[in-house]
């Protein structure tokens, strides 16, 4: 008795999960969200808080957002990514809002696909696009220089204003 995959395995509907969260981000949780018996590859990108900027010691970042719009824009990032890499299966993005101390994770993107090239390239594109258009801001706070906390600006945004 032979088993034919084309008859027995229905393809899964692509799933997209986007959220802003105030708790710690969980890479393994996002990997679980994009895992699938149809996936051969899962790629994640995590953005983490570095301990220094130029000659200053960073204590933490403070993230804030235009929350309703940011959530919509995260979905647009996913839609744009899928347009370029139709072989992407599931996608999940979470971004932290609030304080992020050194080594904390502020954003996680997880992407799955049947073959690895799509997930690898799509994850790279997704973080680049997120940095260019999702209305989230961070203020960087420095040790011993409380009054010098600084609003950061992504070069991806400055290089080209986001399109509708």
């Amino acid at each position, binding site marked *: 008795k032979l088993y034919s995959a084309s008859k027995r395995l229905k393809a899964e509907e692509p799933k997209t999960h986007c959220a802003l969260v105030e708790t710690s981000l969980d890479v393994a949780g996002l990997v679980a969200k994009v895992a699938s018996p149809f996936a051969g590859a899962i790629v994640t990108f995590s953005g983490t808080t570095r301990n220094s900027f130029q000659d200053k010691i960073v204590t933490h970042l403070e993230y804030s957002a235009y929350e309703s719009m940011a959530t*919509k824009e995260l979905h647009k990032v996913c839609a744009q990514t899928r347009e370029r890499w139709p072989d992407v299966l599931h996608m999940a993005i979470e971004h932290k809002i609030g304080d992020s101390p050194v080594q904390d994770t502020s954003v996680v993107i997880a992407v799955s696909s049947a073959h690895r090239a799509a997930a690898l390239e799509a994850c790279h594109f997704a973080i680049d696009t997120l940095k260019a258009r999702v*209305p*989230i801001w961070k203020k960087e706070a420095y040790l011993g220089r409380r009054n010098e906390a600084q609003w950061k600006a992504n070069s991806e*945004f400055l290089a080209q204003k986001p399109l509708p």
Partner: protein
Amino acid sequence: GKRTVTVKVLYFARSREVSGRALETWRLEEGATTKDLEEKLVHKYEGLKELTGVCAWAVNEEYVDDSQVLADGDEVAIIPPISGG
């Protein structure tokens, strides 16, 4: 008199610090664009000048360019340079 539109303006990040507020209602002449609104904002909050040319604009949670004509009831947001990720 001229007709007017009323819009809700949202301030975030640096623009919230400068204006000292998150939200404000503005009455504008009908036909006013985001560019016109920007002039008024800079007039009221001088510190916003530093964002001229570098900020973006959103209307009803969608990016627009600065010649967008504002409609009554619009939610307009000044988007200082973003830094998520």
